[in-house]
């Protein structure tokens, strides 16, 4: 029975193996940090350790976020009613982009004017086209699968999205096509300058339009008869059909509404980033879908909130850590939120079906 080994002299206990101290040494060693700073002396110039992000970062994030929210509405409505993820929704958004660019070209030659009225008309055309596409998708790929296993419509949606992407890629353009500058330049004027930072009319237009459309949708769903029918269908399709709600038509209406909102978002995005590409639907769609889940899928204010949070997070991450990390942070936040609060930020508690 030998006594437990002691430190050779009382003062050097620090040199003993101590996991916590070692961890601290690895992670919080101030010397190490200084050394890494010395290797890259310029890091300090770019990002001061504590500073608020400049206003253009915040505004940019809000604009992105509002577009995410607008696209997310389509995902969230379809999920609310059918319980399925409409993976082709991003492609509908992309169709909206391209239709608008074509309609603008047609309108400016037909009317030989380049006023903003043309832009409104083109947006309308894009909405109609996208709505038609959304309706056709529902008719072709989803309606027959409504009663099948949940993954069947998911797979057919993935197939559809591959078809739509490649259709545009092969028939329209393999490259990004430019949004007509005549129109975007009219909105891309500096509204005011704050501390050397330019604010565009376009950014405020996008923010305003999205918020108005979201509010309108909220009003539509909660205050009109059709909206009530929609909510009824979402709650229980069988009961809804028993009280005389035309369930099929209501579902089609959901797709049409979501698609036309996505088209508006597509028009605004193509104006904002000045080009439209056949693969833009995928990346915006994925983020918008994330937004819908973050806010609580099936919940309309949730989609808006999720969109804004994701947009802001992306741009603020980009400011502090660089754009390398922006997708990581977004998905990390999504994971954490879902693990802590599985129904999303504003989602209602849904009882598991037995």
């Amino acid at each position, binding site marked *: 029975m030998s006594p437990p080994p002691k430190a050779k002299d009382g003062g050097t206990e620090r040199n003993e193996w101590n996991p916590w101290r070692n961890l601290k040494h690895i992670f919080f060693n101030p010397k190490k940090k200084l050394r890494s700073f010395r290797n890259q002396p310029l890091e300090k110039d770019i990002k001061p350790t504590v500073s608020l992000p400049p206003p253009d970062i915040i505004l940019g994030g809000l604009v992105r976020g509002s577009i995410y929210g607008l696209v997310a509405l389509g995902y969230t409505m379809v*999920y609310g009613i059918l319980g399925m993820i409409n993976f082709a929704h991003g492609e509908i958004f992309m169709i909206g982009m391209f239709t608008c660019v074509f309609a603008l070209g047609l309108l400016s030659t037909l009317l030989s004017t380049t006023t903003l009225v043309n832009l409104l008309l083109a947006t309308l055309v894009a909405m109609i086209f996208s709505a038609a596409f959304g309706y056709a998708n529902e008719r072709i*790929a989803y309606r027959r699968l409504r009663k099948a296993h949940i993954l069947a419509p*998911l797979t057919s949606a993935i197939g559809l999205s591959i078809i739509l992407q*490649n259709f545009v890629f092969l028939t329209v353009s393999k490259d990004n096509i430019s949004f007509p500058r005549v129109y975007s330049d009219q909105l891309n004027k500096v509204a005011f300058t704050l501390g050397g930072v330019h604010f565009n009319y376009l950014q405020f237009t996008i923010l305003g339009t999205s918020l108005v459309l979201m509010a309108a949708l909220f009003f539509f769903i909660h205050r009109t008869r059709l909206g009530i029918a929609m909510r009824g269908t979402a709650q229980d399709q069988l009961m809804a059909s028993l009280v005389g709600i035309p369930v099929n038509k209501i579902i089609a209406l959901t797709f049409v509404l979501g698609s036309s909102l996505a088209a508006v978002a597509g028009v605004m995005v193509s104006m904002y980033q000045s080009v439209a590409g056949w693969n833009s639907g995928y990346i915006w769609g994925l983020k918008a879908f994330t937004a819908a*889940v973050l806010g609580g899928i099936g919940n309309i204010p949730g989609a808006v909130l999720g969109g804004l949070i994701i947009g802001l997070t992306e741009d603020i991450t980009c400011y502090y850590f660089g754009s390398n990390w922006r997708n990581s942070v977004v998905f990390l936040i999504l994971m954490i939120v879902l693990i802590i609060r599985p129904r999303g930020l504003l989602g209602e508690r849904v009882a*598991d079906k037995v």
Partner: protein
Amino acid sequence: MFTRLRNYILGFLGLAFITFPFLWLSLKYNYATGNVATVLNWAHGVKFFSNLTVAFAIVAILMALHYSNKKWNWSHPILLTLRPLAPLVEQPWWTPFLMVVVLSAAFYLDHKSLGLGCMLGIYMILALGLNITIGFTGLLVLGYAAFYAFGAYLFALAQQYIPGLQWWVAFPFIFVLGSALGWVIGLPCLRLRGDYLAIVTLGFAESFKELIGNLNLTGSDIGLSLSARSMVKAIPGLTVLQTTYIIVTVFLFVILFAIRRLYLSPIGRAWVAIREDEVAANSMGIDVVRMKLLAFAISAGIGAVAGMLFILYSSYINPATAAFEQSVIILAMVVLGGLGSIYGVMLGAALLYLIPEFLRDSQLIQDFSPNFSDYRLLIFGAIMVAMMLLRPQGLLGSHRHKHEIKRDT
């Protein structure tokens, strides 16, 4: 149902035979002048048809395996002592021959077909692994490619620090570490309902992809490239690719066998019970949490092993391996083949991997139109939608799935 399937196959075959004579006549496209001329080209026709035949053979073999559920009568007292051998002998009589044929393909297939065979084997393993969570247990996982990439990166990194590390040394570690990762990811996810689980795994995969794309250790977005010669010790007399093919095939057989046994074991029955009705399964005494975690872990481990095999084959890895598209393709293989059906998901993997490759490589199709291969993804998407509309339960639906309660509307 079966007669209808048979009609499909016979109709398809008939179509192939009727159109066959025309396929000998291929069109010659002159790039410079833009003229099109008809040429009699036997070689391309033969090649086209032999490709088609291989595809049909794969379909037929997997269907035959699926529909033959031979059960022996073990009640005789002498036979009863041999009961433990049941899994080995309760197979169609031609299974051993099939295994020999598939393995010996390494000797008579050409370079390209061996490459296709390797990738096909890897995709089949992936589909089988994902089938455990989605098909058996009913847990919707959308980020399966992350486990695949995890295994691949693990092996690639180990190669850099331990040069000449052989696959048989690395394989158990990769399986265990992959399973551990699956366990860790599964742990917080068990509170989530089906679709949310899908999203969390999707988020995990995306974060993982971004992480390996940003770290210098993993070669950032450019990826890691290794030397195939140092990783695979070629069997004497065979090339590295032939050896790789044999390794992949053996892994496929072992995993297939293990999963079949698991599926029929109490664990597999517990998984199916959880899928059908979680509450009822719980009240029958099944440890739901443990079973779900087990499904997660085994599935992730198999994915990681598939990643290691991918490195052996391609000796190159980049973050695109963990991309969402990759997960979606694997998922589509499982759904298309038939959720929960072992040979079904292998069939799905065969179709979804071979169709685009076939459309890309067929010289005959290129003769018809040099730009035809650009349309292959369009055709691929159309096939996916059409198959889903025709058979929403998958090509070879699981027997047990027949009794599944339909989702109420």
